[in-house]
């Protein structure tokens, strides 16, 4: 596309884009609320570490519940009627990639929105 076309398109877009003229809320009120809602810098990280430690403790507790009192892990293996084919390598690569996950979620969002009208209540 020629540069002039780009410029014209940009001009048209900026003239017609939605939400024009919406005034932002006062910066001071937004930042004050953000300040009061968040712990001070540094303690946020502390909270994260605390949450991670709690998750580890819970995981250990859950594991100890799963192990029977005599110390043996109950046999939970399942016999499959047919052997399962492993996923193709490409699928694994795609799912390991953060961006692909993002695309997948985006796609799921779009399908969800197309399937259900906006006034549909759960």
């Amino acid at each position, binding site marked *: *596309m020629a540069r002039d*076309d*780009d410029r014209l*398109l*940009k001009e*048209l*877009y*900026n*003239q*017609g*884009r*939605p*939400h024009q003229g*919406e005034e*932002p*809320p006062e*910066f001071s009120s*937004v*930042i004050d*609320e*953000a*300040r009061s*809602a*968040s*712990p*001070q*810098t*540094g*303690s*946020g*990280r502390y*909270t*994260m570490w605390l949450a991670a430690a709690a998750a580890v403790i819970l995981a250990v507790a859950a594991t100890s519940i799963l192990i029977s009192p005599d110390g043996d892990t109950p046999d939970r293996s399942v016999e499959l009627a047919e052997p399962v084919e492993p996923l193709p390598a490409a699928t694994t690569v795609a799912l390991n990639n*953060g*961006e692909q996950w*993002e695309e997948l979620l*985006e796609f799921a969002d*779009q399908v*969800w*929105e197309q399937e*259900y*009208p*906006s*006034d*549909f*209540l*759960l």
Partner: protein
Amino acid sequence: MVELEDKLQRLHAANFQWALHCTGGRREDAEDALQQAYEALLDGSASFEGRSNFKSFLFGVIRNKARSLRRRKKWGRLVGLDRIDPPAVAPTGSDELERGERQAAVRQAIAHLSPRQRDVLELVFYHELTVEEAAVVMGVRLGTARTHYKRAKSALQKQLMDGELQWQETTIGS
């Protein structure tokens, strides 16, 4: 901390416009997303490490907060956050009427774009980010952002031209 708040204040109007875009124009949601983004920066759960420029980083945080809000809301009630609002009150006077019609046509054309295409045009055309910076905000690779940008421009141009043709046919036919 003061430096961070100064930066946020300088970009506050643009931040709010971007939050509005990300929440489909819902002011209340935009304010929530903005506040949550500022909160994340203040408490250190989102920290700028200089891998991109500050504006792209901040827009990325706002976008993520808007998306989380949107996902959370879907569980309670399904809402069309990507819906584009209809044009505002009809203007009076011939110049204003013409401008109003043009704006409505552009808005209609924008509504036909995919969410990703709308995002990239908003970032590049309105917020004047480069396609590279837009890729950072959108969390996609540069090549993907370039493709969205190119397709968005073609689709917008096509929509506008189709709209113009329909308008001419209606005018000549009446």
